[in-house]
């Protein structure tokens, strides 16, 4: 194994510094161009609702595909083989999820000036319980997601530099850069840096797969190897694998499309055409992103056989190092991949952090704790809590609690519990607020208990069991209890399109 030689010394440091400086420069330019950005929630958190097709597409892309997509998905492909083709389908299903609610939510966001996803819950249900619980579940999902990005930075850098650039130094360096540019320019900075980062991510992924094919042999030779030594990774999966595959699809369909930071991007679109074109582009990205990364993982089965679970997490670093040591072109190409991975991680982290701050500042602080606060003060509170939360997560990321994949599944368990309120609320006027709230509470408790006790009947994730009970309570409650006449009038005002 050539794990220790490639990215040593100054080239790794140089590329890190250059990426950091470009991001900072974008933040500074945005700041000087829009000085009033921090006086208004719409300006700061939604970029003044003015994102064009290209910027919106890349901010969707860089937000949806994180560093984990490269660093975590390749090892998962390595571990389970072609069964991980599901990563293409579930990324497409995220778009199907959007079709369930994005058209209507976009129209309502314009009508009622939504800033955060909780604004929708508050407008629809006018229930303190639903809004607060929904906000807390979103904060949990977002915090978890941010943690995942911090762990990814650590794993990525330690894999790619062979330890030359210290793990902690790199994590802290990029978090500080991210905090500065988010602080300066809000959503605009985040979206513009996402554009740069999205391009770097795409470029990096392609260079990695080309390098892997050139130096480790293409798929046919790997398939021969698999047929001999690991046929279970090549053949149609057994029942357990199939059930896991189905439940993963359902979980992502519901969970990933209601990611709060993705929803906030729906609110940020300049107009409907922009939103539609960006979503069409996103529907095709899984093939050139998760599909290509799966190839890297599969080729790794032949290139680095018999890695243990935690060892395999460093697969991309090992492959990149091996490719980089072949010649000068691939050396620099892998340096760029390294930058692309960092960019992908940071671009997801910044989007998550911005939404996290907006939920705290607007939904919890501005709505309930200090309703008289000016928007400037709300934004300030959001920024400070964002920094504190990042600090806490950084401490946790120092000692990663599980593999990236396990963390990835865990965050869905609770986030999906807002789905019935979120989606049914858009269409069903009879939806009964108290039933929605009780469903959400019970679903959350079931998902939490089952996750901690590691109970997954029939191999179906505990979040889905929680969601099933949540949905039953929601629907049966709404059929049994009628909503009052005054409530009916209010609901009609909101969703009577």
């Amino acid at each position, binding site marked *: 194994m050539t794990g220790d030689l490639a990215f040593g010394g100054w080239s790794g440091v140089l590329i890190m510094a250059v990426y950091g400086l470009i991001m900072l420069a974008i933040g500074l330019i945005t700041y000087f161009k829009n000085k009033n950005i921090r006086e208004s929630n719409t300006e700061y958190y939604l970029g003044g609702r003015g994102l064009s097709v290209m910027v919106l597409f890349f901010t969707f892309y860089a937000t949806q595909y994180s560093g984990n997509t490269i660093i975590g998905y390749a090892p998962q492909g390595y571990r389970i083989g072609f069964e991980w083709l599901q990563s293409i389908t579930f990324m*497409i299903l995220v778009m199907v999820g959007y*079709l*369930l609610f994005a058209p209507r939510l976009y*129209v309502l966001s*314009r009508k009622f000036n939504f800033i955060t996803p909780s604004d929708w819950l508050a407008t629809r249900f006018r229930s303190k319980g639903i809004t607060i619980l929904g906000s807390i579940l979103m904060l949990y999902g977002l915090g978890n997601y941010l943690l995942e990005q911090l762990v990814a930075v650590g794993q990525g850098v330690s894999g790619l530099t062979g330890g030359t650039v210290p793990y902690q130094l790199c994590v802290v360096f990029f978090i500080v850069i991210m905090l500065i540019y988010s602080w300066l320019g809000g959503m605009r900075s985040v979206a513009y840096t996402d554009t740069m980062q999205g391009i770097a991510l795409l470029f990096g992924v392609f260079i990695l797969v080309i390098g892997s094919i050139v130096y480790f042999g293409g798929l046919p030779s790997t398939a021969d190897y698999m047929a001999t030594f690991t046929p279970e990774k090549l053949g*149609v*999966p057994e029942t357990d694998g199939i059930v896991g595959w189905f439940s993963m699809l359902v979980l992502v369909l519901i969970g990933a499309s209601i990611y709060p930071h993705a929803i906030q991007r729906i609110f940020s679109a300049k107009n409907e055409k922009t939103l539609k074109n960006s979503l069409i582009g996103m*529907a095709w990205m899984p093939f050139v992103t998760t599909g290509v990364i799966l190839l890297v993982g599969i080729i790794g089965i032949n290139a680095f056989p018999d890695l243990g679970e935690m060892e395999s997490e460093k697969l991309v670093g090992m492959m990149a190092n091996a490719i980089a040591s072949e010649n000068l072109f691939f050396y620099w190409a892998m340096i760029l991949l390294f930058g692309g991975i960092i960019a992908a991680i940071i671009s997801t982290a910044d989007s998550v952090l911005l939404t996290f701050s907006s939920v705290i500042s607007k939904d919890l602080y501005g709505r309930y704790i200090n309703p008289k606060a000016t928007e400037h003060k709300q934004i300030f509170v959001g920024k400070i809590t964002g920094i504190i939360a990042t600090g806490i997560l950084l401490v946790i990321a120092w000692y990663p609690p599980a593999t990236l994949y396990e963390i990835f599944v865990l965050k869905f368990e609770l986030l999906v519990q807002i789905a019935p309120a979120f989606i049914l609320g858009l269409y069903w006027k009879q939806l009964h607020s108290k039933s929605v709230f009780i469903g959400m509470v019970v679903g959350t408790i079931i998902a939490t208990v089952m996750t901690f006790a590691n109970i997954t009947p029939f191999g179906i994730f505990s979040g889905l069991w929680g969601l099933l009970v949540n949905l039953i309570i929601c629907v049966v409650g709404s059929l049994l209890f009628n909503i009052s006449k005054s409530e009916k009038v209010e609901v009609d005002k909101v969703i009577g399109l």
Partner: protein
Amino acid sequence: MLKFKKEPIKNGKLWIIFGVLFLLSVPWYLPVGSYKPLILGIPYWGWIVILVSLAFSATITYAIKYLWITEEDPNMKEEEK
């Protein structure tokens, strides 16, 4: 205010197609452990999953283009004038 002329969620056929594609996208209907023929190093069932996924993306593109149509409410426009 935008008004819906067509909304994807209200198109029953679209959701039937999505349902069928969803079921086809997981190879539960194929013999466990089978992988031959291998085409370009990818097992035959992998190609099926990829083709179904392509059909998914094409359907989504169609739905966004032709089944998500809103237009300005003429009454609102007059009011604005």
